[in-house]
């Protein structure tokens, strides 16, 4: 159950979430299965890493953060804590099923949502350089055959030929899709259109249950689907609302706490849905940038650089906060305003791909992220 009261406003916000499932084996196809399952939660807007994971041990933390220091934060160790909205994550940390990577970012410093979102999904060297996404390329490399089942196709999953998206329609007066009609449309369209109608045809062969659209239900649904014998290998959930320019200060589960609680709830729902499959699963968050260290004038923070990443799942055997802490003093901040990033988050993504899809790090580094020298951080996360 949601651990916060869902108001009408929150429902409408929450309904903006979308789910993407990928790597569902084709019927009758047998091949060695990848060692695990991977799920990515995209936090749209730029999550404030210092709100989610306060570094209360830093001598400058309270001075720099002022009203944004959550009052009842949950203690992780002598240096880091968790926002009070992340209760479930806290217990996963306690049971060695989750880790935090702090002061980390994709290599992007220009603070534009749209360039940043493109880069963290495309996984290329510069924004808009890639037409495919890092997860799509990984699935392609792992040769996981089949079909993937959102309303649009997110960049992160593109590049994987058989990908498809999924978001059940609620349209009055429309009946079951006629196969013959779709076949004729597929034949009549050029390659671009016919490839898509081909997917509509496959979709119309499925029976999809009616499902709710809030993020937690989507996550539980994804978990259940992935737990099935021939279920998808990968899923992506997109959550909006992290662009906290204003009113993020309330530590009582209101304001920004509601958005953080969404992450917490989505991870919990994945776990419920995955059941036994939790044990070989990895769930990780990505966000386009972190935020300014100091609070801005409107009880929020503006676009910045370094943030925190959350990694959860049974594939983790020892919980850690992994960080090469840069410090929060003015001269330790990036451009004297943002949390510095000292860990390339692509390394974290690469480690999660290595663990779940069984691909070699060097291959991931060169073929997925086009960065042959990308550091391997696998042992920090999974040993």
């Amino acid at each position, binding site marked *: 159950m949601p651990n916060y009261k869902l108001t009408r406003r929150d429902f409408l916000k929450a309904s903006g979430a979308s789910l993407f499932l990928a790597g569902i084996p084709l019927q009758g196809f047998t091949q060695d299965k990848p060692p695990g399952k991977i799920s990515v939660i995209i936090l749209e807007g730029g999550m404030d890493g210092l709100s989610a994971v306060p570094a209360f041990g830093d001598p400058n933390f309270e001075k720099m953060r002022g009203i944004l220091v959550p009052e009842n934060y949950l203690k992780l160790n002598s240096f880091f804590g968790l926002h009070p909205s992340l209760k479930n994550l806290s217990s996963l940390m306690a049971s060695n099923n989750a880790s935090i990577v702090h002061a980390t970012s994709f290599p992007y410093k220009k603070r534009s949502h749209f360039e940043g979102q493109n880069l963290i999904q495309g996984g290329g060297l510069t924004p808009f350089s890639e037409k495919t996404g890092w997860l799509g390329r990984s699935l392609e490399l792992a040769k996981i055959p089949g079909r993937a089942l959102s309303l649009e196709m997110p960049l992160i999953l593109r590049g994987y030929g058989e990908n498809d*998206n999924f978001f059940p329609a609620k*349209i009055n007066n429309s009946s079951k899709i006629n196969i013959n009609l779709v076949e004729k449309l597929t034949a*009549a369209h050029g390659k*671009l259109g016919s490839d898509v109608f081909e997917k509509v045809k496959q979709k119309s062969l499925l029976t999809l249950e009616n499902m709710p659209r809030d993020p937690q239900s989507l996550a539980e649904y994804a978990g259940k689907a992935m737990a099935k014998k021939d279920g998808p290998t990968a899923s992506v959930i997109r959550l909006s609302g992290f662009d906290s320019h204003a009113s993020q200060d309330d530590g009582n589960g209101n304001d920004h706490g509601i958005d953080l609680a969404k992450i917490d709830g989505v991870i919990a729902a994945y776990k419920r849905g995955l059941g036994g499959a939790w044990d070989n699963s990895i769930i990780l968050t990505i966000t386009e940038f972190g935020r300014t260290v100091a609070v801005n004038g*409107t009880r929020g923070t503006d676009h910045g650089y370094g943030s925190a990443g959350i990694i959860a799942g049974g594939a983790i055997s020892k919980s850690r906060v992994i960080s090469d802490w840069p410090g929060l003093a003015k001269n330790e901040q990036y451009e004297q305003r943002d949390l510095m990033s000292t860990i390339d988050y692509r390394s974290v993504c690469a480690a999660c791909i290595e663990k779940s899809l069984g691909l070699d790090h060097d291959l991931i580094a060169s073929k997925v992220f086009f960065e042959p020298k990308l550091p391997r951080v696998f042992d920090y996360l999974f040993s």
Partner: protein
Amino acid sequence: MNEHFRIAQKLGLMFRPEETLPTDIKRWAIKQLQSPSPSLGIGNVGSDVKPWPKIFQPSLDEKAVKLRIHWETTKRERKKEGGFTEAAQRANDRDNLMYKKDILRFSHRNVYGSDQLRLRLMSFWANHFTIGSFDSREVIGHAMEEAILANFNDSFSTMLYKVTTHPGMLSYLDNHISAGPNSNQVRWAKANGEQAGLNDNLGRELLELHTVSPSANYTETDIRNAAKVLAGWGIDIKGNPLSSLMDQGGTTNLWDMYKRNWAEPGNKMVLGKTIGTGKGGLKQLTDFLAAHEHTVMHLSTKLAEHFVSDVPNKTDVNYIASAWRQSNGNLDQIHTAVIERAIASKEPKFQLPMTWLFQVLRLSNATYFMGWNEINTSNNSLKFNMQPMQIFDELGQNLWAERQPNGYSSKKEEWMSGEMFERRIRFADSIWTSDSQIQSTSVIMDRIGASKETRKLVESLHGMSSRSKKNQFIALMCSPELMGLENA
């Protein structure tokens, strides 16, 4: 498709059956820019098309009054005063919230209006200046009509200023609570141990998305200084009594709300330009940005991508940019240049789901949106009970949805998904099934001059059953020709 419908597809919403086709299509298209249509619609499903009643087209002041009443009533309800009931809440929503009627009026205009080119351009600019928050939804329709459409015969700089100062935009991008670091407001707040000051949300998007784009290589200082110019503009559109508006802004006009005590004193430098202190600073800034070469190129490209081709060639972009420069940003001249390039380019342009839906409804003369009398009642006829909000959500393109300020992409690659295409089939089915008086597929094909390939596709589904007729209709509407895609 014949030239009339090819151009109406690229630039407009298609001709309705009762509309007479113009003799000179290019002249007609350019003349559209000067030919506004009243807000046409239907009161009830089956009733005649006529102008929307005045009371459902409230001014910003009237909207503000309704919002104040809604907010006060909600507060009383929450305190359980005055017999709080679900029914009272519904009545409060019905009488005082306006977004549902605004979306319906927008839909009706697009289905019944005779100013199809202006409406397409309105949607383009409304998407360019996305206002996508729950808090702003009661005034999104107002911004579209009064800040955007009403300025079509003026300049881009006027439109930019009117949109930037619109209460919907100011609250969507958090500017209404932003105060200059050296303002009286911040001084008072600090003395009381409270937090007040600047945020750069609107300042950043004004540069990045609305005008010059990252290609201008602005710095964080430019963004922060733009935010300082903006500080003081805007106010919470529902939470303030009139006396407070007068106290803070010296006016009750929400579209001119400049709180002197929140403003940053002194000159500000943005992209090398000195912007003066005070209320006039913002107009100076938006005028400067509107004429900036990077704005001209950014928006000429964006217009060409939407109306001419996904990958417009240099000639297309330069033609529009040159009209922009020569006319000092006159929107009539810019839009005329867009029309000329769109007509000259023979490339099909993929139609986004919302435009496609309006085009299907106009071509087929189907009634699909409910009437304005029916919006707050549960219509007994199951056929017409989908709220416009739900229709656009299901289509995947909704100008009233909560969304990011970069808006929807015009490029087809962002819309190539099985689920999106499945919706087109389902909506075509739903439209056919909802209205038995619908125009027949063969009549539509004759009128638009459907291609050989399209006719072959429709013919391949020939049969005597009503299901075959339905599938032929769906096939036509989902054909490469009507979706704006290449044939096999």
